[in-house]
């Protein structure tokens, strides 16, 4: 990430003995300062003005300090058994940097919000000093040999416990972050999370977790869904965050569908949002809305399947002629198709053809879904916690996402998935080996469209109205960005990518004008430093690093271990 000028090695070695006490002192100061008041004004960053009653960000600061203490004690002290596995030096350097960044931003935030440095209380300065000491100390830690993490073994139950704790942390972290109303506070929390994640990555936690999750794949999936399932229960009946969460899920399910086309089959589709739109228009037209133009009002399950089939048919119609071109040409053709869809919906208003869509006005007033006697608009109480409208849609979308993930992973691990990989690797050779290249490409297109159509029908009801301007090119670009950012061809990566791209704009509204600039920058940086995405699929990583022999050997070794297990 951020490169600091290196201190000459001789200087580091000479002073390395002092790093340990200095770092512990810094961490101690950070904790003491956080227990005191940071700000004179109780109105900023939550309330940080009461001594011995730390507010949210002060607890975060204490957490950073405790993490530093643990890492220092792993170098020398009672936790050395941990130190022989984890790369404490690299992780401490990252932590020191991010701790300093965090405290600096806190002071800046207080200054800006209250109008002067004068409003920073002594506690704030003490914590800042602690962070500075920590930063300096971490510059002088010496890197030591660590053992191979793939040999690290803890009892099976402990590994499962780690997964559960991690998932719980994600659940409460997300719930907490969504609850933050102050933009500064949200940004600072994000800085904290990023810092901790990078510290963990530097320590080798991520590669260890990779081994652990490989051994307990089912536990991980189950835990992830449990976390997602319990999320609405943390909201105490408030629907504000649930609205965002269900938007995220719609976006994520579309991204997962596109992931089949882009990530598995390797086809660049820039008009994918049209398939979501097709599903939405079918959902709206077949709903009981007074503005619906079609008289047929089937039950919801039929609507979902109809929407999916209409969308899949569109996929077939657009795919059959265009999939003969590849690469950039396909991207342009699909982009054109996306625009054709939007303009058709825009113009099917009765003036230029049959009145199907009410043109730019769209189909408004779509009533809530009802499945049997369950109305998605009502508030239901479960376990004493009221679950309102968006929570209901959230649960439905969760089921949909589970289905999409099932389709994705099963197709990926089948004859069809192997065919897709072969096509991506070498289309000519695949064809010469008898792989039905054209058929498999069409299949990816149709399956992707089918899943987007399903999501679309739900989206129509959740958004209440369907208009053409919801399905502009930018949305397709965002879906693609979520995949590229998260990691093509992966499930977890794309879900995380979708979450980042949909959640951040909701919380950082003050930044809305620069949203595209920020995402553009983010993507450029990703392409430069980690083209395979945040969470990389092994195969994609290999594809992006054709010359990296070391990586290939490492992945092969890991793979051989997985096969044995």
């Amino acid at each position, binding site marked *: 990430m951020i490169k600091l000028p290196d201190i000459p090695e001789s200087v580091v070695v000479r002073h390395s003995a002092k790093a340990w006490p200095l770092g512990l002192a810094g961490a101690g100061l950070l904790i003491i300062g956080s227990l005191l008041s940071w700000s004179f004004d109780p109105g900023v960053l939550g309330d940080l003005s009461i001594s011995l009653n730390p507010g949210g960000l002060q607890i975060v600061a204490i957490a950073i300090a405790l993490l530093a203490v643990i890492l220092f004690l792993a170098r020398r002290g009672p936790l050395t058994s941990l130190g022989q596995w984890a790369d404490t030096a690299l992780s401490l350097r990252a932590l020191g940097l991010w701790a300093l960044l965090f405290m600096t931003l806190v002071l800046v935030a207080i200054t800006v919000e209250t109008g002067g440095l004068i409003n920073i209380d002594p506690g704030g300065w003490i914590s800042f000093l602690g962070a500075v000491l920590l930063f300096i100390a971490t510059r002088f830690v010496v890197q030591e040999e660590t053992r191979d993490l793939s040999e690290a073994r803890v009892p099976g139950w402990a590994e499962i416990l780690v997964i559960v704790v991690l998932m719980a942390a994600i659940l409460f972290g997300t719930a907490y972050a969504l609850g933050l109303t102050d933009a500064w506070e949200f940004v600072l929390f994000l800085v904290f999370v990023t810092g901790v994640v990078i510290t963990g990555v530097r320590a080798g936690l991520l590669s260890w977790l990779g081994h652990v999750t490989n051994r307990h794949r089912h536990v991980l999936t189950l835990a992830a869904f449990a976390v997602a399932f319990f999320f609405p229960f943390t909201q105490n009946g408030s629907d504000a965050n649930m609205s965002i969460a269900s938007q995220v899920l719609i976006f994520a399910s579309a991204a997962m569908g596109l992931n089949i086309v882009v990530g598995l089959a390797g086809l660049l589709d820039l008009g994918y949002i049209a398939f979501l739109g097709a599903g939405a228009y079918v959902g709206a037209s077949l709903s009981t809305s007074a503005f619906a133009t079609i008289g047929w009002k089937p039950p919801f399950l039929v609507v979902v399947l109809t929407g999916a089939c209409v969308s899949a048919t569109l996929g077939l119609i657009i795919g059959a002629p265009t999939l003969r071109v590849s690469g950039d040409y396909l991207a342009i053709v699909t982009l054109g198709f996306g625009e054709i869809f939007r303009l058709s919906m825009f113009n099917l208003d009765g003036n230029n053809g049959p009145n199907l869509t009410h043109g730019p006005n769209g189909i408004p007033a779509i009533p809530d879904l009802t499945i049997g006697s369950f109305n998605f608009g009502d508030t239901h109480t479960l376990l004493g916690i009221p679950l309102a409208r968006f929570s209901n849609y959230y649960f439905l979308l969760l089921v949909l996402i589970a289905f999409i993930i*099932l*389709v994705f992973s*099963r*197709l990926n691990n*089948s*004859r*069809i998935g*192997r*065919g897709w*990989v*072969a096509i991506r*690797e*070498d289309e*000519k*050779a*695949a*064809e*010469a*080996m*008898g*792989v*039905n*290249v054209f058929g498999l490409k069409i*299949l990816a297109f149709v*399956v992707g469209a089918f899943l987007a159509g399903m999501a679309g029908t739900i989206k129509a009801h959740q958004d209440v109205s369907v208009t053409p301007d919801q399905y502009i090119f930018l949305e397709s670009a965002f879906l693609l960005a979520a995949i590229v950012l998260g990691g093509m061809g992966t499930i977890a990566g794309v879900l995380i990518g979708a979450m980042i791209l949909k959640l951040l704009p909701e919380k950082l509204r003050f930044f809305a004008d620069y949203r595209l600039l920020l995402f553009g920058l983010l993507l450029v940086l990703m392409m430069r430093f980690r083209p395979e995405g945040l969470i990389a699929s092994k*195969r994609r990583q*290999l*594809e992006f690093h*054709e010359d990296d*022999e070391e990586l*290939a*050997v490492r*992945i*092969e070794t890991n*793979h*051989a271990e997985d*096969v044995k297990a």
Partner: protein
Amino acid sequence: MTVTEEAENTDARPSAGVPLLQAEGVIMRFGGLTAVNNVDMTVNEGEIVGLIGPNGAGKTTFFNCLTGLYKPTEGQVRLSGVELPPKPRAVVKAGMARTFQNIRLFANMTALENVMVGRYCRTSSGAFTSILHGPKFRREEAETRQRAQELLDFVGLGTSTEHLARNMPYGNQRRLEIARALATDPKLVLLDEPTAGMNPLETRQASDLIFKIRDSGLAVVVIEHDMRFIFNLCDRVLCLVRGETLVEGTPNQVQSDPRVIEAYIGTGADDDDDQDGVVATSKDAEDTP
């Protein structure tokens, strides 16, 4: 049928054995260039046929015509009497598989996965059964895996199934490509320079492997530059020069034919008249617009 009988048969036209592959009058033109001009080739069941010729003689182009990668301008290719459409997939399905001159493995897949891709055209699990893990999917998947493992054992890569193709040594990559071709259950395998870049030991192993493939009942066509390899291995040899068949016959006949030596080594300056006969191809090329 046995190899020795075949080899002693002095008749260049194959009379013994059942013809498997019959290519007749294959012509491939690229614009004004005739890369393959009126080449006939017959391969009988259980036969190893060599295809030699100097660089640029059109050997690989001819292979591409046979396997449907190119659509020949004229001529037809029949396998077991059935005419092959110029589509790679149909050709593979009919029972003809190939390897490539410059190895074209799926580099980021494991050896086992590479061979499993070769089974694609002999399995038919669709999307539904794959998603539902239906009985057909489970049966085919197990069969595919087992067959792939058998083939890897057959070519001598039984212990490196989980290695990435790109990490494998060069010689093993060649073997893997052969295993992948065999996975399509072919009646005939076309090998495009299977020993290019190999050391003598690897070359000997390759010829053992090709004999082993022939003994399992398949016919083999080999393009090679290594003459010792080809004359050891083949029952019949076809020499292409500038897109035309120069000589066809047993290894001994071809080996001793002065025209073959001439084509490879060239002639003295005073032999220009002879040369003209061979240059006919390029004249043809000029005639065609």
